[in-house]
Each structure stands twice: as C-alpha cells, then as structure tokens.
C-alpha cells in the first residue's frame, strides 16, 4: 500500500465499467439463470415449471450420471496425473541432461515436438485419431494386419470394452506437452549453483531430481495439476468427435451429458442441474488446490 504514495485511486473506477457490464451479460446472468433453471422442468419453449430439487434427486439416481463421473476419474488419470508425472521426468531429463550434454538446441527440439499436439484444435486431434483408430479403414488396424498382428486389431472406439482406454491413450498424447513446457520454464528459475553443490556432495542424477528439482518446481507442479484436472472435468470436444459418448455410453462425460440434455433431449432443467453440479465441483476443487498451495508455501517459509 505504501507504493501508492500520494496518488489517489479516484478516476480508475470508470475503467472497470465496460468489463463489469460485459461480464454481467455474458457470465453472471447466464450463470444465475442456469442455476435457477436447474430447479425447474423446461423444454426450452414456454415457461419453466418449478420442481424444487427434483432434478438433483433424479441425478443422484441416474446411473449414467455416476458413470460419467466415473469416466472422468479415469480421464483425470490420463489427462492430469500421467502427463504431470511423465512431463516432470521428461522436463528434468531435457533440461538437466539433454541440454547439458547434447546442447540446448536438442532440448528445445524435443520440447516443441512434444508440445505439437497441444496447438492443434481439439476437433482436429479428434479427426486424426478417429481416422487412425477406425475399425475398417483406420491406420492402426491396417498396420497391425500388415505386420501379422491382426489378432491385436480391435474396434478401438466402437467396442465398449476398449473405447474409454483408447480415449485415455489419445488424451495422454494430447496433454503431455503442456507440463513439459511449464516445467522446463520453471526449471530456468533454479540456481545452477544448487546443482553444482549437489554434485560436490556426490549426489546422483536421481537424488538431485528428487530433492532439488521436485522441491523447487512445486509452484508449477500445482498450476499444472490443477489446470489439467479442470481440463479433464470439462472435456467435450474430443469426446464429441471421437465417440459422441458411446458406444452404449462407455465414454459418456458430464459436459457431453449436459449438452445432450440441452440440445438433443430438450431437458433443459436436467441439463442445467448436471452443469451446476459440474461447476460446483470444479470451483471447490480449484479452491482446495489453492489452499493446499498457500499452506505449502507457508510451510516452506
């Protein structure tokens, strides 16, 4: 506060007006409306009928709802946990080993390559993999056939037994680059002297990784984990393009489930309840992460 000095804060309020009005119209009003609609039965035409908590009680008895959240848990594994851990290891190897031995150019080529899937539109990654995994003309099955492994070929996205695992594999491919880029930029903060001191103490690469890298990269670690987890909870595009939630709901996720209720089944109240639950979950999760992070920082000091 002292840096404010003699300057007053008067006259700054006006600069918030456009932003506040726009946010009211596009975020606050629709959010309040959705929460309101979730307590009604409404087809989108005519006026909504107040039904209290009916949509929510129905939700908790709907096995598709529970299945969609079960799928999300597996997708968090594929989109947040695996890419974060693998990305941490790869970032450390690239930054601290490849860059030092083969030169930083190699490290940045690897970084760009791993990051490539992240820049593609979600819908396009869906098309790429939808084609590769297609049962009859897809590249993967054709390749398996040509090397005599046709017994391994599957209807990757069309068989309820494998569809979710196929989507998970695609998501690991898609997400891996993000943690690598984040962690590598975080590693640049680390004082090289720390590593040199560890070397003098005779610490091996793995020990250095565990005790220095992982410890100092914690802020990025939290950011990556929370953003990727939230991305997993919100997943829609890949599911829409790859499987449309099928086969027989094997890859149904909450956002697709909500979309179906809004725009295909005209059950707007029910769809609103699903998205309200999803929103509460995301916001609570984000604040829990934030609390954990600040508590961790305080402990560090």
């Amino acid at each position, binding site marked *: 506060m002292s840096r404010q000095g003699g300057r007053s804060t008067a006259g700054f309020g006006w*600069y918030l007006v456009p932003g506040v009005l726009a946010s009211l119209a596009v975020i606050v009003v629709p959010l309040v409306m959705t929460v309101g609609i979730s307590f009604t039965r409404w087809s989108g035409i005519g006026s909504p009928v107040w039904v209290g908590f009916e949509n929510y009680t129905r939700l908790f008895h709907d096995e598709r709802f529970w299945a969609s959240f079960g799928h999300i848990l597996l997708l968090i594994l594929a989109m947040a946990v695996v890419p974060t851990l693998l990305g941490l290891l*790869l970032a450390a190897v690239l930054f601290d080993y490849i860059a030092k031995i083969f030169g930083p150019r190699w490290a940045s080529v690897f970084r760009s390559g791993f990051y490539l899937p992240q820049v593609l539109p979600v819908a396009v990654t869906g098309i790429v993999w939808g084609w590769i995994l297609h049962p009859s003309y897809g590249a993967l099955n054709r390749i398996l056939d040509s090397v005599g492994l046709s017994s391994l070929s599957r209807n990757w996205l069309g068989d309820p037994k494998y569809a979710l695992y196929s989507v998970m594999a695609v998501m690991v491919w898609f997400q891996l680059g993000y943690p690598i880029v984040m962690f590598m930029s975080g590693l640049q903060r680390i004082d090289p002297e720390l590593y040199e001191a560890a070397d003098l103490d005779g610490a091996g690469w793995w020990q250095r990784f565990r005790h220095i890298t992982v410890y100092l990269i914690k802020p990025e670690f939290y950011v990556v984990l929370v953003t990727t987890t939230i991305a997993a909870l919100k997943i829609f595009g890949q599911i829409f393009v790859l499987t449309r939630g099928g086969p027989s709901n094997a890859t149904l996720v909450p956002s697709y489930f909500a979309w179906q209720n809004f725009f295909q089944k005209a059950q707007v109240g029910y769809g609103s309840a699903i998205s309200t639950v999803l929103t509460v979950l995301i*916001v609570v999760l984000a604040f829990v992460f934030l609390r954990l992070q600040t508590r961790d920082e305080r402990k560090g000091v």
Partner: protein
Amino acid sequence: MTALATAPDTRTESKTSPGVNRRRYPARYIVLGVLLVLLLLVVAPLLVVALNAVKSPSDYASNGPLSIPKSLHWDGIVDFWQRVDFSRKLLNSFITSAVVSVLAVILSVLNAYALGIGRVRGRVWFLVFFLVANLLPQEVLVYPLYYLSKSLHLYDSLFSIIIIFTVIQSAFGTYLLSSVYAEFPTELLDAAAVDGAGRFRTLWRVVVPVSRPTLAVLFTFFFIWTWNEFFLPLVFLISNANQTVPVALGVLQGDRQMDATTTSASALIGILPAMLFFLIFQRTLTRGITAGAIK
C-alpha cells in the same frame, strides 16, 4: 547412473573432444534413443496424416497407411476444400479470432489498469470474480446464452461468438495482467503525473507501451484459443456459411462421404493453419521468456 553425476563437468569437456567423451558414456545415447522413440510416437500420427492426405484412395487400399504415396494426389484435399467451402471457414475463423483477441486485450487492459494500477476499492473481490469466471465450464453458461442470443436475433452469427469469447478470454487476461500491473514501476506513473497526464493519457502513453510484450503474448494466446474453440461455436454457428474451421471439420466425422484419404485430407487442412500459428507463437513465447529472464 553414477556416470550421470558428472554431467556438468563433461559438458565443457565434450565441447573440446566430443568423440572421446561420447564413446565413454553409452548411457547418454540410450537416454537420447528413448526420447527419440517417444518423440516419434508423438509426431507419428501427424506424419501418417500428411502421408495419406496426398495419397489416392486406390493407393491406400492396396499399399496401406505407411507406404510412400505413388504420386502426389491432391484431389482429396481439393475436393474436400471445395465441398465444405473451406476458404469461407478459414475466413470465419480468422475474423472471429482476430477481432476477439484485439477486443479481449483492450478489455483486459482496461480492467487491469483499474485493478492492478488503480487499486480500486474491492479489487480483491473483482479478482476472485475473474478467477472464478476462468474456471467455469462453458456448459453452465451455454443454454442461457443460446436463449438470450436467440431473443436478441444474434443466434447463428459470428457476432454472438465474438462477444462471448471476448468476455471469456478477457477474464483470463484481466487476472494475469492485474498481477503484472501491480508490479508496474511507480516512477513511470509519477513522472506521467508530474507531466500533468490524466488517467487515459497515462494508460495510453505509458502503461500500454511499457507492457507491450505481455500484451503480445496475451494476444497470441487469445488468438490460438479462440481459433481452437469448439463447444460454443458448435452450438451457436449452425449454418454452413457461419461455421469456423473446427466446427466444420468436427461435425463431418461419421459422414458417409468420408473415407480414409478424405479424412486425412480434412485433418491435414485443419492441422496446417494451427502449425502456422505454432511457429508464430513459438517466437512470441521465446521473446516473453527471455524478457522475463533479463528482468
């Protein structure tokens, strides 16, 4: 793994006598090899797409996905381009992304000026609001937005998408830029005040020019994010003439006219613009990182 501990020392040695040194440590080539295999796995799907986008359907049928095309067969791409009127989709995507990024940067600057530099009352609450707005899934906003835009006759127009994404992107921009502006050098602001510059003049002549690198990074992010958006454009842009690139490609999946080579052709023309932005993005990002390092 004990050989790895001396890595920093060998770096200087390897500059002088790389041959001798590299032969002594086969482990480093194993690490490099593993990474190369992993990189190939990541890039392979895109290479396979490129390979088959320029292959004739009969060539694909007889030689499979991994063969080199017998001859460059552009028909798949040309046919698909004309069938979906891809030039139109590119233009729609470009207009939407460009306008959104400009407007969202302006809105973020205005908000962050009041919150980061002006420190208006209740700014913590405003920041919490913009943080939460960032987290919201679009599903929780979509139906009312759909309903409201219909009653305002803005449904199925780029205009609605532009307004919505400007606000959504600026929520992130405000949050990020406010923390950047909170550290803005006070001397510059005081000097502007001494010169008798008003609030707007200070913003336009001092704050914006000084923070230009950050604004460039924000602009790039907004452009690419808006270009890649799928969910809201899918809901709002239903007529063919208004679709953006991801929507046009996404809704065609499962279409009967799509065979192996047409699908890879469609994927390739979806990949190429993104790759172009990736190259531009790379440069901005490196500039951003090096700028941060000097500070």
